[in-house]
């Protein structure tokens, strides 16, 4: 890596100054971030003496395995649908440009900046018992229309909607840097437009796909608000389970163990990403 500001960076006084500047942030994060995080780790193995029974309780119970597996499955489904809905949109934005791109990016930005709670509430109305979607279904002759709210379907659908902007922005930021002349070159050499897309554009946009999928998958793994408000109470996701363990059962040991498991899963995904891509690329 190139040395920025060469001479100053080498000097001892420069290093001392750097640590002085970092000290407030370091001390603050140590006291108000690392200690509470460390406490979660601590409580997961102490009760009041060292024990692993909170973890044993988690891994020997079918119910917890189902929650963990269900969380993975939901996160995977949400990621796939986000990608399927975002890719054509991002592609059209980059290819058409102009007014079309401005309007589309505005719509994405509007959704991006609107609070998760507002959007979750909107889905509550749409999927509700007196909502428009059930009305349409019964008007089409599906009577009685199925219950939509408080199912796995409702929370999955809402999470797709909530996380799409992240996927679009990840895809867009990579696609807009692709030089379209390479696609044109492929076509002029005899490739069909679809072949040129598949063999040239798609591989070049792969970093955006990887970034977007990693972001959406990780955000979905730890999602609390939407699954709790819209999802099925019998098919909780892991964050909702932690909430229940705290609020209803006051089981801090078990809640801590569950939290550590969620943390480990999240860290593993980040570690894999870091190994193959590099963590600094994720937030560009």
């Amino acid at each position, binding site marked *: 890596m190139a040395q920025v500001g060469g001479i100053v960076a080498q000097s001892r006084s420069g290093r001392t100054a750097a640590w002085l500047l970092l000290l407030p942030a370091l001390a603050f994060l140590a006291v108000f971030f690392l200690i509470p995080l460390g406490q979660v780790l601590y409580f997961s193995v102490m009760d009041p003496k060292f024990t692993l029974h909170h973890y044993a309780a988690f891994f020997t119970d079918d119910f917890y395995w189902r929650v963990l597996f269900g969380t993975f499955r939901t996160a995977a489904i949400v990621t796939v649908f986000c990608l399927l809905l975002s890719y054509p949109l991002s592609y059209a934005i980059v290819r058409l440009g102009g007014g079309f791109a401005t309007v589309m990016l505005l719509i994405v930005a509007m959704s991006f900046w609107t609070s998760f709670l507002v959007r979750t509430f909107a889905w509550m109305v749409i999927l509700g018992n007196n909502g428009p979607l059930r009305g349409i279904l019964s008007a089409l002759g599906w009577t009685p229309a199925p219950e939509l709210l408080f199912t796995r379907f409702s929370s999955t659908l809402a999470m797709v909607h909530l996380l799409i902007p992240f996927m679009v922005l990840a895809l867009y930021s990579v696609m807009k840097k692709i030089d379209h002349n390479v696609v044109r070159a492929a076509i002029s050499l005899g490739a069909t437009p679809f072949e040129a897309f598949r063999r040239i554009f798609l591989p070049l946009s792969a970093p955006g796909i990887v970034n977007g999928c990693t972001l959406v998958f990780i955000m979905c793994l730890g999602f609390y608000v939407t699954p709790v408000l819209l999802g099925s109470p019998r098919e909780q996701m892991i964050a909702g389970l932690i909430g229940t363990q705290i609020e209803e059962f006051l089981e801090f040991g078990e809640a801590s163990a569950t939290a550590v498991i*969620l943390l480990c899963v999240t860290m593993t995904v980040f570690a894999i990403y870091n190994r193959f891509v590099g963590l600094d690329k994720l937030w560009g």
Partner: protein
Amino acid sequence: MRIVVALALLSALFILGPLLIVVPMSFSTAKSFAFPPPDYWLGYYRAFFADIRWTQPVINSVLIAFATMLLTMALVIPAAFAMVRQRFFGRSAMNLLLMMPMIVPHIVMALGYYSYFSHLKIIHSPLGVVLAHTCLSVPVCYLIIAAALKGFDRNLERAAMNLGAGPLRTFWEVTFPVLRPGFLVGGLFAFIHSFDEAVVAIFISGQAASTLPRKMFDSIRIEADPIVSVVSTLLFAAVLLAVLSPLLWRAIRQTQMKAVPA
């Protein structure tokens, strides 16, 4: 390409449609979340502004977000200078620490704060929420301010020093004014991050320091209060205004330019 555009428009409709539904809902006379509304009135707007159980969380949220913004900037700006301008032992560890609050799921931190702040006796207090939100806002604020700093041309500082300005004067008259927009954007992100943060606030803010997202969460979960649609519409209108204002500004400027005869 026509198929791609059609798919893109469908996605856009899927993104936009649900956002718009909260607007007619807020003028509905229905006592529960029924759509389409049976009739329209302004009653729930009046109820919202008259009800301290709703206005207090709004005030709490604004004050907490403002304090979070100031505290985050006070921590992040000096740290970003050190991180961008110096190479030293422990730099990558420090980088990881600054980014970690973004990596750890919020529900994990909510659990940590719940027991830690109970122990410190600052649970259910605005102070606790500000301290927690500051940690969670550090990464996004740091990313923006560090990016602004990386783009800063240090020759400007060298020129000022060459012309006889001391380090402090150089900072206040050259470095700070150039970087001010980046600092403001970083601060704005910290503000919004705190204002929108729900998970930690749900667990640690309590009744006394209840933030708006917490109040909305409780209200949707427990009572299905139609006032939620009023709050949602107001929040959506604020976003709409913020997102569209640069465009409007440009349009006004252009008409003014055209109005001036060449």
